[in-house]
């Protein structure tokens, strides 16, 4: 009996999975996003944008043939050790191009797999420069951390009048550490003082870090951490009566964070890619789509507030379609060759890649939470000279 089971398992290992063919030829786009873990909420919202775009434009004509676009999802679990198998899963599914991921660390961790398989990847909201630097296969539609860090530093210094900033990042998180480093460079360049501390993964008790910030007499509390931690920090800051503003990066742009801040006295300010209202047609369509699909609404945190990451997912999808059309083929290598010259007018603005494969972006939106309603309010559009 045991032997037969063993034999069966052995056979399963060798026989590759069967694929079911449809009438229309299929082009596969990989969605490499976290659906669980610390960045699960953000990953799901980013995926929503891609799914909405896919619902709107389910087919694409490549080289005169109409293809059905199939999204292949792989959950990288917000963790660099689960990332390789998720990446490999996409590669073996035979995707032509990959979108993602939310979180720079997992993007870097999956990068080599796409490279080895000659598949291009389009980063949607991974802002760490390491994602694209030195790679010819990784592109990105959002701005970068050196830019974002500078914007935040300028804002903290000029608008908030801060001279001392307390920075808190997660230990072992490339995104947090990178953005804080760039912020520090820029802020110290402006003559300010930066104190940086790290917390270990899995921390829930931030009270002492908040105490530290006030002990250091900081003017701003900068914590560009994942949604899971930022909601904790905001709620504990509210309980402790933190009087200084909490400053965050693009990861904090989520209705989950806004909800956490609702009804408190904590001022939360962030930089992000998109502000609701900038493109009415998209906003309406997206909201309607969310409200039609209860599952999707749950993935968006239970309401239909638009997160910037969804917009980036939406734009990324059209970027991928444009690249497929330009390549005239579903072969990964061809798409990769076509990508550098592709340009689109996305919801988040005109997208065009520079030499390293990064979108040329000159401005970021600054938003704050209306603590009475729990909504994001537009503050300003910040550029760097």
């Amino acid at each position: 009996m045991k032997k037969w089971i063993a034999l069966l398992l052995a056979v399963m290992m060798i026989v590759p999975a069967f694929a079911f063919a449809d009438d229309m030829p299929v082009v596969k786009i990989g969605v490499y996003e976290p659906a669980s873990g610390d960045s699960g909420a953000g990953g799901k919202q980013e995926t929503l944008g891609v799914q909405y775009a896919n619902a709107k434009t389910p087919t694409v004509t490549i080289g005169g043939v109409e293809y059905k676009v199939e999204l292949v999802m792989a959950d990288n679990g917000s963790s660099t050790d689960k990332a390789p198998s998720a990446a490999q899963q996409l590669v073996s599914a035979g995707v032509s191009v990959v979108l993602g991921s939310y979180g720079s660390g997992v993007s870097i961790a999956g990068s080599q797999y796409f490279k080895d398989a000659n598949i291009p990847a389009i980063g949607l909201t991974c802002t760490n420069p390491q994602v694209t630097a030195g790679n010819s296969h990784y592109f990105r539609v959002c701005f970068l951390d050196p830019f974002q860090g500078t914007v935040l530093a300028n804002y903290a210094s000029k608008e908030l009048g801060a001279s001392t900033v307390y920075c808190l990042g997660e230990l072992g998180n490339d995104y947090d550490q990178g953005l804080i480093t760039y912020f520090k460079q820029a802020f110290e360049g402006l003559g300010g003082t930066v104190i940086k501390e790290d917390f270990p993964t899995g921390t829930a008790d931030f009270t002492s870090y908040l105490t530290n910030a006030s002990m250091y007499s900081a003017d701003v509390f900068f914590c560009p951490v994942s949604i899971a931690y930022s909601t904790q920090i905001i709620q504990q800051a509210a309980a402790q009566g933190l009087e200084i503003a909490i400053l965050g990066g693009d990861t904090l742009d989520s209705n989950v964070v806004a909800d956490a801040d609702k009804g408190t006295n904590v001022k939360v300010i962030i930089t992000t890619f998109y502000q609701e209202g900038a493109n009415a047609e998209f906003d309406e369509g997206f909201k309607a789509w969310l409200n039609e699909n209860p599952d999707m609404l749950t993935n968006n945190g239970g309401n239909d507030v638009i997160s910037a990451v969804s917009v980036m997912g939406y734009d990324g999808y059209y970027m991928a379609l444009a690249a497929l059309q330009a390549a005239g083929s579903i072969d990964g290598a061809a798409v990769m060759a076509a990508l550098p010259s592709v340009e689109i007018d996305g919801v988040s603005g005109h997208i065009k890649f520079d030499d390293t494969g990064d979108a040329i972006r000159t401005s970021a939106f600054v938003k704050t939470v209306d603590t009475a309603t729990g909504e994001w309010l537009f503050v300003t559009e910040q550029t760097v000279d």
Partner: protein
Amino acid sequence: MQYNWKGCVPTVWDTVFPYLLSGISVGGQYALIAIGYTMVYGILRLINFAHGDVFMVAGIVMVYIAASGLPLWLCIPLVLLITVGIGFLIERVAYKPLRSAPRMSVMISAIGVSYTLQNLVLYITGGLNKQYPTIPWISETVVIGPAKTKLVTVVTPFLVILLVFALVTLINKTKIGMAMRAVSKDFETSQLMGIKINNVISATFIIGSFLAGVGSVLYFTNYPTVIQTSGAMPGLKAFVAAVFGGIGSIPGAVIGAFIIGVMENIIKGLDVILFKAGITSGPLGLATFSDAFTFALLIIILVVKPTGLFGEKVTDKV
């Protein structure tokens, strides 16, 4: 590097106090978990790796029950009841069949249960953080001396002392308590003396889970996000606390937990404290080691005094 410090805090006490407060609060919550560890270890000689996850499950259950619209005064007893049920069930399903197996097997089973609970919660929640409901009164903000905090911070130590007092009375005065003491002294002999071992063990798990449930209400009111891994760290730290205090000893576990909680928060603020005291001239990044410190303490204790602060020495017979 020179730092430009604005403002000044007058005394060392004012500097240290907020950390002490955080520490005592979290220490009290660790204590409630640590009691479960120490009691189970005392009787079964088993590190119940799943105990931290029972604590986490109590949090998740609360989230879902509160979301169903039940009034809060009903939610809390219901959560405690379900938590107790889960603890009882775990013992019956995963530990009881292994009573005569080697200790390593039971410990592996405990790790298996922990893995199962975490994955189950991952599946149910979809891997996303869940917002813990706000419990009125204890969630209110109060001002104590130089610090501002939630009322739960203040309530916790008192509640812990009250519960420990009740528990010690239970163990010393009731029949089941006597049976527990007997079983923890000598498993086999008490079995021969007609003590219903299974009932005693179940009672132990029920008490442990009940306290973990109470601990979870307090803990998640303070740190209101629950995810499948939420129980792992508090669980491990509570275990360290139990070892620190001398495993098998309830007062030991409680004192150990308070010490661990306070030390951990002092480490987080050590950079500040050292600076304010004029010992260092800038941050050293010691906060990085707030978790590692707990484990270093564990290793030191195990090596220097394996029986902990209040543990009894056991000699093996050859």
